[in-house]
């Protein structure tokens, strides 16, 4: 549970982790129904549309909206997003 929470970047409290163990066990019990299904030779389906990704020509289509976008940033300064020091 700790490993999964770390991969998901969630700081679960002890109470939340305990609740999560109980409920995830129920959910895994549900999804485990698939384990017995014979899927030999079945092509996995990632997506409803049988299509390939469209490509577009490499042209600039967006205008500069940095200020607009950074208005939602918890902390930004002079066009930069601020976070705690990463490199000592």
């Amino acid at each position, binding site marked *: 549970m700790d*490993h*999964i*929470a770390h*991969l*998901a*970047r*969630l*700081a*679960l*409290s002890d109470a*939340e982790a305990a*609740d*999560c163990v109980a*409920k*995830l066990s*129920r*959910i*895994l*019990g*549900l*999804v*485990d*129904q*698939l*384990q017995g*299904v014979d*899927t030999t030779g*079945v*092509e*996995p*389906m*990632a*997506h*409803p*549309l049988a*299509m390939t*990704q*469209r490509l*577009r020509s490499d042209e600039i289509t967006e205008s500069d*909206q940095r200020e*607009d*976008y950074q*208005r*939602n*940033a*918890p*902390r930004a300064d002079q066009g930069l*997003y601020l*976070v*705690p020091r*990463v490199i000592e």
Partner: protein
Amino acid sequence: MEPDSIAGLSRALRARKVSSRELTEAALARIGRLDPLLNAFITVTPEQALAAATAADARLARGEGTALTGVPIAHKDIFCTRGILTSCGSKMLANFTAPYDAAVVERLAAAGVVSVGKTNMDEFAMGSSNETSYYGPVRNPWDPERSPGGSSGGSAAAVAAGVVPAATGTDTGGSIRQPAALVGITGFKPSYGRCSRYGMIAFASSLDQAGVLTRSAEDAALLMEAMAGFDPRDSTSANRPVPAYAAALDQPLRGRRIGVPPEFFDAGLDARCEARLREALQVFAALGAEIVDVALPHLALSVPTYYIVAPAEASSNLARFDGVRFGHRCEAPGSIEDLYKRSRQEGFGAEVKRRIMTGTYVLSAGYYDAYYLQAQKARALIAADLRRAFESVDVIAGPTTPTPAFRLGEKTADPVQMYLNDIYTIAVNLAGVPGISVPCGFAGDLPVGLQLIGPAFGEGVVLNFAHQYQLATDWHRRRPPEPAANPAQGGRR
């Protein structure tokens, strides 16, 4: 004035018997009166709404505009709306003002539709009862002690209570059809790829699709004509022409075939819902349609398949909420890891965290093949069942939900009980085909929904069958009793 059908309002607007401003003011007044009880709205936008209504009236005065110009609606709060809070029902985005409009919002605004606000929803659309919303549960207009369903519960309650004639929604596993059924209105999910996902906050990208909650299939057809269509900004948008849905509504059903899968009548289906469904099939038979059995042998796999695929995609999509560029950030982070972990811990609610954990688990090293790959193969089997069925029938009919509306709090203790509520709607999303729920009677005082499913890009067929049913019945005209506006019962936290 009570909102009526879009078709009717459109005629009145064009004949200048009513103005968009009057309709919009009436909708806003009704929100003011009913929303303390229903909690259907997260944000109401009177200023923008009245400005849009004035512009619509000017267009109509010049003899311009479309069939939708001047009609008030509401948008689910999952759609980005420029300059307006777009919370997705989450604390994570409780401070997020969208910098642009979603494609669906843009298209409807261009058609002259007036948005009165943003509707409440399960957090990040993850829920079937509207109880996971950070803004509190929505109440069902038929019984305020009951859930309106979810995740588009606010849109459903607003339409059912006569606040607006229509609202947008999204449907990843039933989030339009299930709430529509539980509040006695029409809910339409088009084929995957029909409406652009641009600006629609992502939950599970291979399943998410925008649609509408309306009073009738005819109104759904009118809205779909404006909402649907190719958009290069969505890499999975379908590049195919949008048919004139409204023009195809009148085709007679004589000689056409409705498939009924015996798998839909399992032990979990409430006897009253089954009885209403059998009566609806009699109506179709009387209209000349032929009712035949079709097999969906892998239907029972759809819930476990969905609860692998959807959380897997959600865990990836929600990785973007990191407390750096937008959304909630924790106080005084000690390091970048601490910033990520505590911001996400504080910003997401319990169900969203559960789905992120489930998705992370099924995608993690050593489990990917057993869970995710196996689910993708099961998904192929379910989609193949539907494709095969549509070789011999025009539409498939079945229940939308196993029971009528359940009580708030009834299913919150066990997530699996809540997930099983989606049993009849999920296969449609896994296969990417269109589906509609229309009212087909009552179980006691609570509405029951009939689901009609069509082949991929067969929106017109589904809407045609639903419309013919609504010409022959009046369940879609039933209204909940006028609620006593009592703010003390409000759902807000």
